[in-house]
């Protein structure tokens, strides 16, 4: 590096650049928050009927670590199918999702990647399915490319 370019200049670029781009990031974040309501399926969350069900569903989703095998909107583990669009893949049927989760054999499927049997109650199954339905209503800019996730 040329002598004309001093350490002080490098330091100032660091502080100035970091500050500027962090503030820009905050501004973009602020703007994103303004747009979320039109994209994040808030209607479902705010519905007095569905809201609490979805919240329970998300809690069950987390407390059973579904993300440790599955992706949700492409984030998570790559061992099992994407679930952000499973509601659509299963023909927009909550019953089909509930039936699938409920029917997992306790000891797995021999030789095949298996999903545990979680012994959920009907209410819990309904909440999980409602949660997955809610996620499928988020505007993801047409991702995934097709129904296979």
């Amino acid at each position, binding site marked *: 590096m040329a002598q004309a370019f001093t350490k002080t200049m490098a330091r100032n670029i660091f502080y100035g650049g970091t500050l500027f781009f*962090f503030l820009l990031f905050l501004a973009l974040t602020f703007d*994103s928050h303004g747009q979320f309501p039109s994209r994040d399926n808030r209607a479902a969350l705010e519905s007095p009927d569905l809201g609490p069900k979805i919240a329970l569903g998300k809690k069950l989703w*987390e407390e059973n*670590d579904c993300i440790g095998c599955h992706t949700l*909107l*492409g*984030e998570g583990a790559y*061992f099992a199918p994407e679930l952000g669009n499973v509601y659509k893949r299963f023909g927009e049927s909550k019953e089909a999702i509930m039936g699938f989760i409920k029917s997992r054999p306790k000891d797995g499927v021999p030789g095949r990647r*298996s999903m545990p049997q979680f012994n959920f109650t009907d209410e819990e199954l309904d909440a999980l399915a409602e949660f997955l339905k809610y996620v499928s209503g*988020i505007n993801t800019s047409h991702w995934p490319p097709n129904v296979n996730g």
Partner: protein
Amino acid sequence: MKYKSQKVARLYFIAALVLFVAQILFGLIMGLQYVMGDFLFPYMPFNVARMVHTNALIVWLLMAFMGAAYYLVPEEAETELAMPWLATLMFWIFFLAAGATVAGYLLLSYSDLAKLTMNDMLPTMGREFLEQPTITKLGIVVVALAFLLNIGLTILKGRKTVINLVLLMGLTGLAVFFLFSFYNPTNVVLDKYYWWWVVHLWVEGVWELILGAILAFVLIKTTGVDREVIEKWLYIIIAMTLITGIIGTGHHYYWIGTPEYWQWWGSIFSAMEPIPFFMMTVFAFNMVNKRRRNHPNKAAMLWALGTAVMAFLGAGVWGFLHTLAPVNYYTHGSQITAAHGHMAFYGAYVMISLTIISYAMPMLMGRTAANSNRSQVREMWGFWLMTISIVFITLFLTGAGVLQAFLQRMGENPTPFMVVQDKIALFYWLREITGVVFLIGLIVYLSSFFVGRNEPEPEVAVAE
């Protein structure tokens, strides 16, 4: 080693290596479950092995960063650590908490662990990489605060160097952004938006400051190049890191419900993120070429150069591969992501940890500057075995990922996920075999600590 209190680093480094072994063993279990789906089912479902694999990784890297700080901050500040006893105490708290958490993962079902640790009170569990019970997360915050206090006071009372300052900024940022792990709204878009403030702003933000500072320290020590030159490089590298990396977070905001302008912001800024990694490579080779002395620890030098190259490959090249929105549309959440994750984490953060361990451990074990020739040769075998293995693991996963994107997401008749996984099983077998070679490399590496202990340090010619 100039100051007695630096010695506490040894505990951290040893624990880090123990957890590294655990990480790899669980990686191999998962690798087998990928191709033999019912392996260990239902006793250890895939997700449990994954939690142990990734959390052990994160915790051992944190241990190594803390050890690095406890070693290099006193040396840079030219003073003893402010509170050595606190460093030892925090080590045991951290290590026992990590052990208890892993035991919880392995012995209880995850939902029972959530109940036992009262996740209801402040639900933070069940998100990728942040699976730890809330109480463990709080423990991490306490350990981090005590650590920052200790390091901060040491820096305040001693000589202030750029390396110490950058390291402290990186570590502070690490603690600050971790706080976002406590924010967990029901709204999935918001949850994911701020989840990345932990994950992305760590590995492509503040952790790079830590990486740069440790690399600069080891290069000053091993090459004897003028501090002014090295500090200027360090500043410009971390400037580029944050200028590109902060807005670069946008490469995770393409398909999660966030506004579409992020496809532009994310693509453009993250496409520039390889620049600081490339500068790091140029920097390291430049300094080594300009060296004013030949340090007897050749192994540490190899690790330092290896970090510079592999971080650029894993983060820079493999990151760029899938970072533009039109590409990411097909690769998002596929084996391409896993390929990149492995080489980037290994190349940048595993290797910088092993660099500082390689540099500092001989002194921490009471030697003058380096291990015996025999031990170093053994260590370098470990370096090559592990590094070449990760390259091949990455290549096999990339092959799997390209086929996956092609079969599952493109063309007229896209194939369902599970069918595709069956079709690409060959790549997973190859990955698993390579993983075994990685484990052998790790064993060779660890064995280097036990050979040639009574042999003298290698002689070096005084430099030109």
